């Protein structure tokens, strides 16, 4: 890097640390919004709370273009194959935030048609409690995920080698 006085300086780092830093600050969320939580998610990306401050405002509805799936709302047995399919279509590295009590555990819908937590079929990195969570809580979840990405603690980091082995 060239300094104002004309001299040059260098930044040394490891490639993966650099990549993590880049990834954590440019999360592109795919809002898998089904219910009430999706309305709160809209508030989070709107001007008042403005998720852009954390580099995560580029909302993409295409799984090919996003790397963070925010499951916002109740997932029913009818919806489950759709969630799984969209998760599978996302390119790696990919992360999942489970927003709200329903996505985390089924919430207070404990009956015949409701999935008791999306972690029944997709790996979840951050669980955000609340019914629905306040915008602050979701932002806390995003910041937490950024920390986990920086420290290499996400589900993706944990299982990437394993998955490579199985495909090889």
């Amino acid at each position, binding site marked *: 890097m060239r300094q104002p006085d004309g001299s040059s300086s260098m930044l040394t780092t490891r490639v993966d640390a650099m990549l993590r830093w880049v990834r954590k600050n440019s999360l592109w969320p795919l809002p898998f919004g089904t219910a*009430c939580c999706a309305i709160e998610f809209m508030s989070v990306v709107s001007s008042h709370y403005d998720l852009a401050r954390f580099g995560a405002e580029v909302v993409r509805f295409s799984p090919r273009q996003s790397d963070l799936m925010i499951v916002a709302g109740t997932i*029913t047995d009818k919806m489950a194959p759709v969630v799984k399919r969209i998760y599978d279509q996302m390119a790696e590295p990919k992360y999942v935030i489970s927003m709200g009590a329903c996505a985390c555990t089924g919430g207070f819908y404990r009956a015949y048609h409701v999935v008791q937590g999306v972690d029944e079929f997709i790996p979840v990195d951050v669980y955000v409690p609340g019914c629905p969570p*306040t915008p602050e809580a979701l932002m806390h979840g995003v910041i937490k995920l950024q920390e986990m990405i920086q420290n290499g603690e996400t589900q993706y980091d944990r299982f990437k080698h394993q998955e490579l082995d199985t495909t090889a």
Partner: protein
Amino acid sequence: MTASSTKSSTQLPDAEALLPADAVISSARAADGHTELTVDRSRLLEVLRTLKERPELDCDLLLDICGVDYPRRDQRFEVVYHIASLARDHRFRVKVPISEDDATVPSAYGIWKAADWFEREAYDLFGITFEGHPNLKRILTHGGFHGHALRKDYDPGQRWLLTEEDSMVPAWATEELTDEDHLESQVLNLGPSHPATHGTLRVVVRLEGETISKAECEIGYLHRCFEKMSETHGWNQVIPYTDRLNYCSSMINGVGYALAVEKMLGVEAPPRAQAVRVILSELSRIMDHAVCLGANLVDLGALTNFWYFFQPREEIYGLLEACAGGRLTVSYARVGGLAHDVPADFEERVRYLLDYIPKFVNDVEKLITTNKIFRDRTEGIGVVSPEDAVAWGWTGPCLRASGVPYDVRKAHPYMGYEQYDFDVPVASTGDTYARYLVRMEEMRQSLRIIRQAIDDLPEGPVITDDHHVALPPKEKVYTEMEALIWHFKLIYEGIHVPKGDAYSFTEGANGELGYYIVSDGSGHPYRLKVRPPCFAIFQAFPHILEGHMVPDAIAILGSLNIIAGELDR
């Protein structure tokens, strides 16, 4: 475009004399204002047709069809129809008892098109077959589901998993076209996870070139078993569930439910609670319309308006949070009043909102109402005639956009709406643009109501002092024996709602929100059926689509304001 609704109040005719002889097993005037008819199923269609066609009865609006399960009766199931007349003020409840071995009823689809999805729902959840229904299959649960979930002997703990192979594909979507132009035809699937559906809806369309020639909707992706869950919860514990029906205006649902239970109990909330309910319900209506219009406009490419509408929403959320502690799902209403009193600065904050909101409404109005792009995309698109709208069971802003001035707040005032001066906006063209105009004007009318309500906000308690219904104040529980006993009994046994049934209806943000409640006298509902306004509106959607293009479908869908939580329950 604003017109006051006129109400022609007529004396209820002697129904039995007008109906076919001997067709009615019993008839009675129910406490909730309905005329209740019990009919044998062999005469059902005859009775229903007379109700609709006889000019003295003139029941043009079929509101709801639902099943109720009574396992101990000889005739185990009861199919309940709720029918209303728009021109005359009367309402009928028709009950048809049927046995389990032969759970079949003739379909009312030929009389009212509105019967379509309601019958499918009763088939799905109770296993009642409707003979003559054009497309009788499961609607809320999925293709891999076994059993009928709302039967009393269905174990709510069991789940059935769906694989992708079982997901719905309409038969017509897979059939080969033999016609020589078939190269132009293709099947397109929208949803259930699609940015323009704003919820979990799925539409399958067949395109001839760019024109939609056939469409079918699939719903139930957010069927959260609300009705089953409420059967195991106390009367007040149901309120948090009602908040999550139409989550854009949760206060209205909670209030509607509380009113229904109050009607059965014969108690009334104190004046202050009524006024606060009106204020918060109308603010919720504004929020609901703001989300609907904002999302509709985003789909049409007008993103700015979305931000304009979300800013006042945040302010309203602030007020709701101060009152109830929750932003979106407030759980503020209680049977008999409100959970607790409003904060000290309530009046000040409401007045601030009254000044703050119109600015945003006006900004959007300036940007959109005369905007050529918007008008080109919405005028003449998705036209619904008044006759069709009524036949499909439409209510609310969508019905009024078609020119029928029916608003529950005017036609059957509740919660003191008769004392407020407001107009019911009506448009005549019934297209997407008309639905936009009606919602914009309704936001202004809601502000008018709020201004009147806040001007004479009564003082006093916010919950009834009937301790069969509401807990006594905590300080009394600690100091008085009697209050302690009331507290104990209410916590342990819950509210005892008298045995019987009632249908109570209020004006939700999307239309008539009805609760049909059956009580067996115990501490929780025996059966709770919600009549969600979206459900009737959305069943017409595939029929509206025919002849339109895919971009029109997106514009129409947004203007109908389909909220999945309420649609699927």
